[in-house]
């Protein structure tokens, strides 16, 4: 077996689950996440020779992230570069989505569902930073490198994402107490 294949399998493939989770969060449906993962693995394997870093996980996440953005540009460009529109995104959060099947709804507790939907309602650039920080535990620097944005932008996006989510949680608690 060529060494290149073996080292790719050992270094990069163990991080496929993290890659899939990121793709799924960025694209918000299974089908597109699968397409993007396929594209990402092809790209990663092609450019593997250029990988000299010490963090194969962050490297794979970067490739997945770039593939996801390429996909969004080609298929759902309106989701990109969305300015944070408080009203629009607030509404999306409070309405909730109804696309989940009853089984899925039953499986998740109300709290889980609520937070998932609130995060899904964030514009992709904010959702990305939040997911990388809270789910993958990446540092600001790692997120900055991955998304090719300055650290200051990581901080402001993360902060705005959190404020938005805090506001959603507060509204929900309020609604719960008055009804």
């Amino acid at each position: 077996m060529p060494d290149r294949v073996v080292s790719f399998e050992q270094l990069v493939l163990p991080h496929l689950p993290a890659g899939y989770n990121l793709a799924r969060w960025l694209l918000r449906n299974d089908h597109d996440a699968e397409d993007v993962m396929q594209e990402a693995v092809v790209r990663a394997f092609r450019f593997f020779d250029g990988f000299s870093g010490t963090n194969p996980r962050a490297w794979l996440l970067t490739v997945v992230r770039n593939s996801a953005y390429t996909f969004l540009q080609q298929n759902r460009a309106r989701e990109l570069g969305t300015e944070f529109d408080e009203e629009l995104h607030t509404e999306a959060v409070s309405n909730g989505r109804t696309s989940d099947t009853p089984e899925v709804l039953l499986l998740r507790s109300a709290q889980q569902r609520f937070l998932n939907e609130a995060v899904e309602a964030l514009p992709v650039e904010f959702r990305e930073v939040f997911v990388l920080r809270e789910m993958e535990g990446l540092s600001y620097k790692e997120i900055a490198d991955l998304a090719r944005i300055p650290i200051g932008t990581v901080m402001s996006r993360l902060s705005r994402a959190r404020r938005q989510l805090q506001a959603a949680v507060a509204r929900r608690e309020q609604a719960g107490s008055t009804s």
Partner: protein
Amino acid sequence: MICHETRRLLDAYVDNEIDLRGSLEVEEHLAHCPGCSADEKSLRELQASARANLTRYSMPPELEARLRDLVRPGEPAASPPSVPARATPPVRRAWRWAALAPAAAAAALLIVAGPRLWPQPSEASVADAVVAAHVRSLLANHLTDVASSDQHTVKPWFQGKLDYSVSVTDWAAEGFPLVGGRLDYVENTPAASLVYKRAQHVVNLFVWPSKRGGDEPLQRLSRRGYNAYWWAKDGMHYWAVSDLNEAELQKFVELARRQR
């Protein structure tokens, strides 16, 4: 420090992303400011809630198989259960051993770093090992350790040599006469090999206990001109390897699966 400044730094503070001096200043302000301190509490709650509640989407196994196949076309995708074993980089784990006495640490490093040099057995490497064992059994005039068509001879022969029990059936009536048994090593584990014939062809059925436990569905691959089927049932791995064509080997596999 004033509230405005504190709130600007609060995210970085809860994320441990500010320097010590900044951190101390924020702490001092929080101690005296109920508003900012409530804000901090709410941030930490959100963080805890996100970590506990956000769905970690798991990759469909078929997708993982497909992705692995992109890298190694034409070979069986390593099945997902091999991934957790690989997911922890052995080198990082080695650090935990560093506190041991130097000699022990050196030994531990050898052991722990081992899997990096010799990869964890994936389905692909097991396939290589099993097919190699099959080929060896044909070449070295060492097809059987116990030559017998009697299942009541072959089964007890294994009992003294393996710490698990192997069921042995002769399928002469179905066209696969038992010719004997042999001891092999696969995945560094002693494996029973039951040897059958079909006309001039030899079928090796390798059986050994699964480290992962549980069942795995029937899968097929061909390697170096040999066909192989494998599955796991009740915590045991089964690999049937032969130069028989796929359809005939499949007949054998059906017999073996029905009996076990």
